[in-house]
């Protein structure tokens, strides 16, 4: 009987693996790519050392006045002296612990939810959604024996994080509801969703914020005063939920029709099919889009400067006009940029990790 024996697998040619293989494939695959590689190399060699010199080697770290900055490099003393203000705004210094405790607790809760193999995730999630906001409000604002700190004293990174966290907290669920509404076959929910989304997408965020702080009070009864921060938060949440809705709608539309048909044929109700079959897959598909919207939201919080809220960027900018520290705007901007970058980059990395974790098909 004729038996077919497959040929043994041969090792790949040595030029296609290892460092040389990698460089050939990624850096010098064509003459044009080789030229680009050399150009990039030149730029790195030419410009990186001065930047490193300025930021680290010639920089001034010690001291507490501008006289300490003599080496010609960056003057990080400015940032060091102003750091608590950049972090907490005009929050009373003896109450900083409240802010630290609130964010620390949030950090623990989020880590609990994001890390794998932590027990009782659903209880922690319920606590984070239902109870934590109350605790955070009391810590930030006051009550239950804690002295009240008005929102106009909130500022810096603390304010930026509050705006971003609450914005994300509302934008995702609102976005999901709006996307479902827009895909609905029922005419009224669909019409309402379309009008809402198109209205909010059609105006710039800066207009929304301006309207919420300047125009809205004109139309509201004298005795009904809503805090400026709350108005900005509502504006940001509604604005971003419209964008989120369109991102999620993309995911819903990308899902083959067979998925909802199979769910129907098995007898699942609309809501069961939505939450068990459709949304888990649709949201997974659009993780990059959702994170993109989150990152945008995070950076867009800088626009609250226009209505006089002192977020991280505006408080850094206001420090430039301190007569004792004139001329250190570059250090301030670099610092603010670095802080924004750390947060946005972390979100981006986590989303990549999440995509890998949720991938269930063939690995390519």
């Amino acid at each position, binding site marked *: 009987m004729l038996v077919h024996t497959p040929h043994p697998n041969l090792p790949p040619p040595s030029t296609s693996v290892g460092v040389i293989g990698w460089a050939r494939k990624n850096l010098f695959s064509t003459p044009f790519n080789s030229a680009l590689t050399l150009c990039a190399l030149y730029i790195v060699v030419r410009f990186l050392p001065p930047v490193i010199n300025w930021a680290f080697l010639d920089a001034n770290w010690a001291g507490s006045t501008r006289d300490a900055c003599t080496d010609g490099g960056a003057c990080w003393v400015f940032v060091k002296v102003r750091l608590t203000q950049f972090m907490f705004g005009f929050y009373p210094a003896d109450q900083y612990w409240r802010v630290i405790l609130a964010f620390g607790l949030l950090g623990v809760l989020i880590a609990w939810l994001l890390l794998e193999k932590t027990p009782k995730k659903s209880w922690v999630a319920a606590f984070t959604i239902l109870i934590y906001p109350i605790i955070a409000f009391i810590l930030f604002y006051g009550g239950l024996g804690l002295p009240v700190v008005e929102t106009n004293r909130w500022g810096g990174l603390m304010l930026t994080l509050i705006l971003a966290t609450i914005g994300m907290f509302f934008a995702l669920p609102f976005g999901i509801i709006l996307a479902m509404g827009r895909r609905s076959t029922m005419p009224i929910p669909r019409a309402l969703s379309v009008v809402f989304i198109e209205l909010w997408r059609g105006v710039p965020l800066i207009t929304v914020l301006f309207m919420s702080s300047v125009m809205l009070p004109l139309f509201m009864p004298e005795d009904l005063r809503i805090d400026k921060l709350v108005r900005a938060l509502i504006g940001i949440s509604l604005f971003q939920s419209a964008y989120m809705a369109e991102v999620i709608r993309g995911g819903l539309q990308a899902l*083959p029709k067979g998925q909802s048909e199979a769910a*129907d*044929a*098995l*007898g699942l109700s609309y809501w*069961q099919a939505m939450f068990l079959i459709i949304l888990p*897959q649709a949201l997974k598909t659009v993780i990059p889009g959702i994170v993109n919207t989150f990152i945008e939201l995070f950076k867009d919080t800088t626009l609250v400067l226009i209505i006089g809220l002192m977020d991280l960027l505006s408080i850094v900018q206001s420090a430039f006009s301190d007569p004792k520290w004139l001329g250190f705007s570059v250090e301030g901007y670099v610092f603010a940029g670095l802080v924004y970058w750390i947060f946005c980059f972390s979100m981006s990395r986590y989303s990549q990790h999440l995509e890998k974790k*949720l991938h*269930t*098909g063939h690995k390519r």
Partner: protein
Amino acid sequence: MTQALTQPTPAHEDLAIEVKGMHKWYDEFHVLKDINLTVKRKERIIICGPSGCGKSTLIRCLNRLEVHQRGEIRIDGIELNDDLKHIEKIRRDIGMVFQQFNLFPHLTVMENCCLAPIWVLKEPRREAEETAMRYLERVKIPDQADKYPGQLSGGQQQRVAIARSLCMNPNIMLFDEPTSALDPEMIKEVLDVMVDLANEGMTMLCVTHEMGFAKTVADRVIFMDSGEIIEENNPESFFSNPQSDRTKLFLSQIL
């Protein structure tokens, strides 16, 4: 089996499916024209015909994946209309297998099988998993229970899809071209499962081009063209002695 055709009106309890004067339109297009069909319990029916003849649409109307506009459909005596309660009951009663499998890719094989029993029938998880394992053994893939659908071959996926439907313990199974998306090597493993199912007395309606399968298991073969039932007969007569010219032409092309 031919008695089914000649008997005037069989007793109500014997009827699994009863379709009377059913019409369906896609916008202007008249896709199903005056469909009359009765299926007795444990009957195995094969529906064939050229593509676009409405055969898939017909079986999709039976569990309301498509909505018919005129006529009457009764499944186990329950009328299929806009009443959500009726639709819910009928869908629990009918299992469906699709051409493209339509497994849920974000769930494992086991979760695919247990989902509907747990959420629709409110079975306890352990019980649902035991049932699922039994059916996975029946379709001969118990060892794949913890894999995701994307890691299985087409034939394995389709067998999981059959097991998933069986977990709901349906009285009727609909098959919409279950082997058309499969490589030739995998068609047999799926057909074997379907033959087993037929031999156990499941009421089956199957849209397929597998004429060998039709000859082995069918009690009745239905031939459709341009939205109408042209001919129905037992398989021996259908294949050896087709009545209409359209049927003869169709059979000469596929056999």
